[in-house]
C-alpha cells in the first residue's frame, strides 16, 4: 500500500481521535447499546424477554380466583400487581402496566370443569403494547389450564363439579329427554367413581394432561443456550460500523468545504488514492470498534467466540461493506450537513430493515421480506453464525459475498461520482 494512502488514513484517524462526539458514536454508543439491551433482555442466561407487568383485580375473592391469581404470579412471563378495578385501569392508562385483568364475581362458576358457562375475564389492553398482547393471552391460557389440571387431580372437588353439572343437565330442557338420561347416567357414574376412589391412587393413575416441551437451543452444540448479550453484542458491533460510516462519510464533504480536498488534489496522488485513504481509515476504525465490542463482550459478558477465524472474516466482510457504503454516501452531498443527513437517512432505513433497531418478528411480513436485502441483516447473521450459531463456511459464504459486493458497489459509486464532480 502506498505511503500517501497510509498518510491519508493516519490523518483521518487522528482527526477522529480528536473528535469526542465522533468517537462516542464509533466506540461508546455500540458498547452502551450492547450492554444496556443485554441487561434489559435478561442478562447472562436470560430468556431474552422481560416479564410483562399486568394489573389484576380479583373481585370474586373465591377459592378458584385466588388459585388462578397464584398461577399468574408463578408465571415467569408476567409481573402481577394486585389492585382494585379502578386502580388497574388507571395503571394501564398511565402506561405502567400493559394490561389489566378483572376476575368478576362469577369467575369461580365458570372456572370449574364441566361448567356449562366459560370462565369470564375482563381484559383491558394498552393499545401501544399490541405486540405483547399475544404473549399475555398465552400466559393467561396457560394459567387457566393449570387451574383446571389442579381441579381434575382432586377427586373430591371434581365430584362436586360433576354433581353440579349433573343437576344442570337434569333440568336442561334444551336437551332431548333421551340424551339427558344418557349424559345424566354418565355423570352419576363418574360421581360415584370420584366418591369412592382413593385420592392418592387416583392422582398416580391419572394420565398426564398436558404436553411437555423439552426446549433446546438449535445450535451445533445442543447444550448451548445463548445469553441475551450474545444477541445484543452483534447488534452493538453493527452499530459501531454504522457510527464509523456516519463519522467518516462527512469527512470528504468537510475536505471540500475547508478546501483541503483542493490541496490534496494538487498532490501527486489520484482521486482513487484519496478515496482509498479514507476507506482505509474507516476500515481500521470499523475493525477497532468491532474488536472493542467483541473483546468487552467476551471478557466481561461471557459472549462465546465459537469460531474466531470465521468471526474475523465476518467482521472484515461487514467492515468492507460499511466502508464501501461510507465511500458512496460521502459523495451524496457537497456540504457536511447534506452528507450527514443523507448518510443517517440511508443508514436508519438499512438498520430498521435489517433488525438493528427492533426484532424482525415485530415487523410486518413485507418488511421481513425486505430485510433479506439489508446488509445490516447480513452482517448480523454472519456475526451470529460465527459467534454461536455454529454455521459452516458454506453457510456464511453467501452473506460474506453479499457484504463484500455491496462494499465494492458503494466504493465504485463513490469513485465515479467523485470523478464526475472533480471540476465542480
Amino acid at each position, binding site marked *: 500500500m502506498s505511503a*500517501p494512502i497510509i498518510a491519508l488514513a493516519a490523518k483521518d484517524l487522528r*482527526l477522529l481521535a480528536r473528535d469526542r462526539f465522533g468517537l462516542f458514536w464509533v466506540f461508546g454508543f455500540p458498547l452502551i447499546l450492547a450492554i444496556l439491551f443485554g441487561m434489559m433482555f435478561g442478562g447472562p442466561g436470560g430468556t431474552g424477554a422481560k416479564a410483562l407487568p399486568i394489573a389484576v383485580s380479583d373481585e370474586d375473592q373465591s377459592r378458584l380466583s385466588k388459585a388462578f391469581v397464584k398461577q399468574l404470579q408463578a408465571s415467569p412471563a408476567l409481573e402481577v400487581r394486585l389492585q382494585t378495578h379502578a386502580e388497574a385501569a388507571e395503571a394501564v392508562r398511565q402506561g405502567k402496566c400493559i394490561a389489566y385483568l378483572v376476575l368478576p364475581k362469577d369467575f369461580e362458576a365458570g372456572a370449574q370443569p364441566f361448567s356449562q358457562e366459560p370462565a369470564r375475564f375482563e381484559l383491558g389492553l394498552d393499545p401501544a403494547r399490541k405486540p405483547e398482547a399475544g404473549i399475555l393471552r398465552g400466559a393467561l391460557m396457560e394459567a387457566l389450564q393449570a387451574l383446571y389440571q389442579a381441579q381434575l387431580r382432586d377427586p373430591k372437588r371434581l365430584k362436586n363439579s360433576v354433581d353440579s353439572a349433573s343437576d344442570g343437565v337434569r333440568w336442561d330442557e334444551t336437551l332431548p329427554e333421551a340424551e339427558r338420561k344418557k349424559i345424566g347416567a354418565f355423570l352419576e357414574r363418574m360421581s360415584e367413581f370420584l366418591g369412592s376412589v382413593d385420592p392418592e391412587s387416583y392422582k398416580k393413575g391419572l394420565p398426564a394432561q398436558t404436553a411437555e416441551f423439552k426446549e433446546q437451543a438449535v445450535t451445533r452444540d445442543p447444550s448451548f443456550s445463548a445469553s441475551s448479550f450474545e444477541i445484543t453484542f452483534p447488534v452493538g458491533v453493527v452499530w459501531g460500523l454504522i457510527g464509523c460510516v456516519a463519522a467518516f462519510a462527512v469527512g470528504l464533504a468537510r475536505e471540500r468545504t475547508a478546501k483541503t480536498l*483542493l490541496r490534496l488534489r494538487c498532490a501527486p496522488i489520484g482521486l482513487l488514492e484519496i478515496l482509498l485513504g479514507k476507506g482505509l481509515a474507516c476500515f481500521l476504525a470499523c475493525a477497532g470498534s468491532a474488536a472493542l465490542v467483541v473483546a468487552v463482550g467476551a471478557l466481561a459478558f461471557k459472549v462465546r467466540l465459537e469460531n474466531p477465524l470465521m468471526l474475523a472474516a465476518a467482521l472484515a466482510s461487514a467492515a468492507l461493506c460499511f466502508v464501501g457504503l461510507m465511500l458512496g454516501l460521502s459523495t451524496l452531498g457537497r456540504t457536511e450537513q447534506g452528507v450527514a443527513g443523507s448518510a443517517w437517512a440511508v443508514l436508519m432505513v438499512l438498520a430498521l430493515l435489517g433488525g438493528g433497531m427492533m426484532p424482525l418478528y415485530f415487523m410486518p411480513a413485507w418488511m421481513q421480506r425486505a430485510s433479506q436485502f439489508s446488509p445490516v441483516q447480513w452482517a448480523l447473521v454472519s456475526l451470529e453464525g460465527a459467534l454461536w450459531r455454529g454455521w459452516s463456511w458454506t453457510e456464511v459464504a453467501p452473506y460474506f459475498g453479499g457484504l463484500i459486493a455491496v462494499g465494492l458497489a458503494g466504493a465504485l459509486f463513490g469513485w465515479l461520482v467523485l470523478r464526475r464532480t472533480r471540476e465542480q
Partner: protein
Amino acid sequence: MIQVREIRKTFGARAAVDRLSFEVRKGETLGLLGPNGAGKTTTLHLLAGLLTPDSGTVSVAGEENPAQAKVRRHLGVSPQALALYEDLTGAENLAFFGRLYGLAGAKLRERVAWGLNFAELTERGAERLRAYSGGMQRRLSVACALIHEPRVLLLDEPTAGVDPQSRNHLLERIATLKSQGLTILFTTHYIEEAERLCERVAIMDAGRILACDTVEQLRAQHGGSLEKAFLDLTGRSLRD
C-alpha cells in the same frame, strides 16, 4: 518553466478564461493582477491540473499535462482558502502534506522544522490550528505548499485577510525564495505586492490578459503608476 498557449475554460456559457497565453521563465516571478472574477484563480487551477482546459495547452517544467504525478511533484500550490486541518497541529499539517509528496524519516523532520521556521511558528508548532491567528494560518498554508521543495510555486492571493505584519513577513519570505531561484506565479489584488515582488505583471480581466510586461514598462506606458495602468485597463466600475 510555465507555458500557457491559447487556453480557454468555460463554465456553462461563461468563459472564465478566454484564449489566454503567457509564459513564466525559470526563476521569474510573475504576478497575475486583476479584479474579482477576472479568471486568476481559474488560471492557477488550470496550471495546477485541477481543471482541464477546453482548448489550448498548459506546459509546466516541460510537461504538457500538469495533472501528472511527476509534474505535481515540482509544483507547490497555496490555495486562496487556507486549506488546512484545524484539528491538527502546525507540525502535523506540514508532516501530512510532506508525506503526500513522498517525504519520510529524517528528511520529513528536517522539512517540517524548515516549514515551521519559514512560518515563524517553531515555538507553536505543537499547537492545533484552532489556536492560531489568521496570519499564522496563512503563513503555515504557504509553508505547506513549499514542504516538498517544489521548482514552481503557485500562490493564490497569499496575503488575503492577514495583518500588515504577517503580510510583510510573507512578502519577505517570498522574496527570499525568489532570490533562491524559485519560479513563482501569484495572483493578487494588491498592486504594491506586485510592484514589490514581480519582474513582470499580467493584468487580467474577463478571462483575458490585457497587458503583460515588466513593472517598469507598465508604469511608463500608464503615467508612472501601476495602479493607473490597472484602472486604465480594467476600468473603474465595481465588480461585486
